[in-house]
């Protein structure tokens, strides 16, 4: 079940998706973290961020919208409180990084450089680039390649660029990340959506729009992973509505090396662990000795 991404070995391909597992503390009561390939932390910024006004979550059919706005306690608290907590568990730690400007990203990247317990960095480029009229870093290929390059120059850990699906051509973005030097890409982040409360005649979210996640987005995510797998050679971590091992296997057959479980942890905290166990069952049933054999194995 072991996979290798940019030289980092994971006991199995299953990770938790950033933003859905806090920094591990809240779910450690319910889940055996040692059964996961990795925990991917909530996005960490250079200073504490408060996020958006409430309401900032809303359920949708087979999914949910969130406009949390990347609330996080900042890198100082992350290093002094959250990282030590995760160090107590035998599971790999991938830290998700967010920022409003290149400088902010780099500050966090620099601070994490000496943290031995951090195996990889995942860069959230769905943050609005306040210096570029608030277009998200990941929505412009030039911006994406540039920020990737700047981070790669400074990072001690391998770098995953987490792609936003809210673009016209996801493979163009994948190529931009690879050109910038990314060691891997992860996708998809949430899809921009909206919900209206018809009885109150108001937007369900104070922010009006939010990111859609959950089973509803899986077909879009699988399609995008497949497109990216055809466009770049770097490994892909696939996510978007994974609820079962079968869902995860779709992503792997489409070309993903690793997979992440996000929203479904809210539905059942055991989901990620069950997905890992189910992938193992699948390998046994199909007489496959190494999980790496199924990566990109979907037949034309």
């Amino acid at each position: 079940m072991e996979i290798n991404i940019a030289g980092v070995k994971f006991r199995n391909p299953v990770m938790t998706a950033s933003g859905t597992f806090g920094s591990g503390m809240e779910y450690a009561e319910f889940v055996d973290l040692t059964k996961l390939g990795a925990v991917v932390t909530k996005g960490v910024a250079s200073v504490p961020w408060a996020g958006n006004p409430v309401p900032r979550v809303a359920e949708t059919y087979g999914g949910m919208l969130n406009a949390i706005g990347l609330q996080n306690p900042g890198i100082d608290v992350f290093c002094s409180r959250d990282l030590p907590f995760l160090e107590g568990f035998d599971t790999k730690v991938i830290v998700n990084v967010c920022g409003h400007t290149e400088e902010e990203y780099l500050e966090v990247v620099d601070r994490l450089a000496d943290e031995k317990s951090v195996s990889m960095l995942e860069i959230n480029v769905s943050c609005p680039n306040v210096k570029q009229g608030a277009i998200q870093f990941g929505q412009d290929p030039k911006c994406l390649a540039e920020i990737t390059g700047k981070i790669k120059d400074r990072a001690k850990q391998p770098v995953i660029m987490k792609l936003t699906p809210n673009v016209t051509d996801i493979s163009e973005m994948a190529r931009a990340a690879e050109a910038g030097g990314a060691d891997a890409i992860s996708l998809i982040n949430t899809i921009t959506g909206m919900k209206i409360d018809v009885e109150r005649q108001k937007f369900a979210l104070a922010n009006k729009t939010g990111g859609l996640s959950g089973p509803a987005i899986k077909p879009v995510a699988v399609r995008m992973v497949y497109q990216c797998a055809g466009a770049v050679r770097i490994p892909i971590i696939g996510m978007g509505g994974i609820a079962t091992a079968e869902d995860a296997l779709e992503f792997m057959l489409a070309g993903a090396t690793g997979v992440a479980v996000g929203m479904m942890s809210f539905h059942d905290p055991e989901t990620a662990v069950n997905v890992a166990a189910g992938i193992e069952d699948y390998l046994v049933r199909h007489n496959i000795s190494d999980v790496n054999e199924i990566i990109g194995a979907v037949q034309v």
Partner: protein
Amino acid sequence: MKARMTMTVSETEELQSGIYSMTLAFPKNTHLTVNPGQFVGIYPNDQTALLPRPISVCRWDEKEDMIRLVYRIAGKGTREFSGAGWGDTFNVTGMLGNGYDLSEMAGKRVMILGGGIGIPPLLELACRLKEKPGTRVTAVLGYRDSNMFLREEFENASYRVYIATEDGSAGTKGNVLDAVREQGIAGNTDIIAACGPMPMLRAIKCFAGEHGIKAFISLEEHMACGVGACLGCVVKTKNVDEHSHVHNARICTEGPVFDAADVDI
């Protein structure tokens, strides 16, 4: 202590239009302690509605290891719950939230203020305070009209019950604070415990501030995870929160009960 469990429906009842009662049994030998004001995250069996519905505990039966929920139909999930019957099961995460601090209220003159669907969790509080020697509970319950669910139970648990109805068909015409003023009972109160719609809680915060009375209010906000991981359900705080390091506290974890002076509502 939090756990994810399968709970079994024991009794169900429609109390009045749109308001239902459901009693759930914990799995055998669970023995979780329930604080008044805590809630559970109860999952619809409809797999297209994936998030837990946060519903406060109305009554805890420690001996039988059961909880009673009283809730109103607000959407898909609660509509499904209202159709449940004896023997049906639901996935439930509990016990969630902090609840009211009984030690702060024990031995004091407590004014319980309940507005509409905010009333149910206050019943467990009243019943637990009744067990604390020297505690005197005055309950002020606000309803829309003369359909006054749980009134009888409060009569049995409290020193006095006052009623307010929006349409004036029983008690004071108006809301709970109108009843408090009309009855002149603010002066005999050491501490307030409230639950109800946000405008009511805002008014109570002001009222408590004016009278120098400590008030504990139970808040709600749309939730996703219910356990403190997603940061969806925050309330603005007066001071920087110890956990978040910003002026936000999680209603599901630092709350739902807050000192009214500590939150910016």
